[in-house]
């Protein structure tokens, strides 16, 4: 059986500058992969190419064996949720309506079905008491958890996360990471761009290290963090080294 998400030879240029120089990766059902790499390396571009928010210049994306093309794009996107760095909750809608709008308007669920589903997902991210709030009334961490609930309510096959915690204060990062860890353990298929070493170590099946528009190396967290093959990977890990040390210590404790 083929992988749930197959990304093959993605290339993307902005002007003369080739951001992605042929990136391929697979995501098995239930797998969580974390993508890391220096800033400007094309991680966000890769995620946006996968659901064609930025159409790639070359390469293919397959979900469940079906190739993504302009014609089926909206149907595929219903199954590939996206969680943004800066949340992008719909500002004019209450939390509940942010979550029900997709199931109701796009999936065609009834009002009560959509509502039940929204409540279920809100409970899952621990925010059932915020149904009536507007996004501007929530903390960053709460907003990101609502946006995860919004993603989950579409019952997607895979969720793409683009640095979901990097707009958050350190003390708010934990609540979002915990939600993501639980999703991973429940078998959600996830592709996560993140430098949260704690999450990567404990929840990821594989780490993908990107540099200069390529995937430089990938492997299980233990291998990639403790015995990286490439000097560039080592240098990058040293750079975010404090976190690695902390996470390693935490990991040993667990």
């Amino acid at each position: 059986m083929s992988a749930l998400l197959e990304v093959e030879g993605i290339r993307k240029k902005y002007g003369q500058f080739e951001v992605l120089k042929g990136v391929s990766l697979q995501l098995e059902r239930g797998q969580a992969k974390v993508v890391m790499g220096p800033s400007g390396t094309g991680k966000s571009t890769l995620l946006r190419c996968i659901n064609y928010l930025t159409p790639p210049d070359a390469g293919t994306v397959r979900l469940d064996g079906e190739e993504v093309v302009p014609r089926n794009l909206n149907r595929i996107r219903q199954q590939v949720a996206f969680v943004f760095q800066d949340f992008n909750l719909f500002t004019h809608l209450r939390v509940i309506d942010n979550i029900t709008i997709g199931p109701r308007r796009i999936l065609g669920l009834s009002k009560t079905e959509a509502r039940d589903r929204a409540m279920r997902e809100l409970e899952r991210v621990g925010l059932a008491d915020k149904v009536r709030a507007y996004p501007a009334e929530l903390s960053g961490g709460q907003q990101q958890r609502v946006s995860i609930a919004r993603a989950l309510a579409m019952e997607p096959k895979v969720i793409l996360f683009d640095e979901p915690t990097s707009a958050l204060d350190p003390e708010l990062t934990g609540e979002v990471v915990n939600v993501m860890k639980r999703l991973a353990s429940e078998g959600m298929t996830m592709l996560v761009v993140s430098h949260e070493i704690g999450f990567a170590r404990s929840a990821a099946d594989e780490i993908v290290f990107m540099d200069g528009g390529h995937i430089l190396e990938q492997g299980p967290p233990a291998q990639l963090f403790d015995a990286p093959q490439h000097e560039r990977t080592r240098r990058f890990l040293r750079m975010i080294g404090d976190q690695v040390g902390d996470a390693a210590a935490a990991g040993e404790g667990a």
Partner: protein
Amino acid sequence: MIWEIIWNQMPYLLHGLWIALQLLAALLSLGLVLGLALALIEIYGHWTLRWTGILFERVFRGVPAVVLLLLFYYGVTDFIEMSSFMAAVLALGLRSTAYQSQIFRGAIQSVPQGQMMAAQAMGMGRARAVGWIILPQALRHAIGPWTNEFSSELKATSLAYVIGVVELTRQGKYIVSSTQGNVLIVFGVVALMYFVVNRLGNWALYKFEGRITVPGFERRAA
């Protein structure tokens, strides 16, 4: 004496005001519908449409209202039968279209790009995303500047005087000439009537703005 004249002539003034309000409602509605369409075309449209839209907007913003009124009344009525009221609705309504398109364009563009991205990422087509996500937010941004447009256009209805629409200003003029009434007092009363309608309209629009405001869209200082 003069107050007695004013009192006796009040039904005419009120009728003039009523015509002015009808003109205002018609031209603002025309401008709202076409202005919104023009804004959407300027932002999302094909470049040829966009180009045509921009040209339209430049022309109608670049020509004095009185000249437009004369053009529509004396120019266009040569080809199409049209009352002076209709000519005024078209001239001022198309001019308002140009102004309102700029209000809506600015409002739509002030909605952060991430909103469209998030909508599209969940599988919402662009047109639906505009209708469900972008416009509801843009209209909240638009209502402040739109209040200005309301005030300007209320005052602009008095220009329809030049093509013979018997609105409030022309009624005032009739009263002055038929009764040898005091110009200062008659037009003072006319001015007061415009002023009161203006304040009432602004008050209602602010009230409406308050009702649709949600956290994150607090009314900006006017």
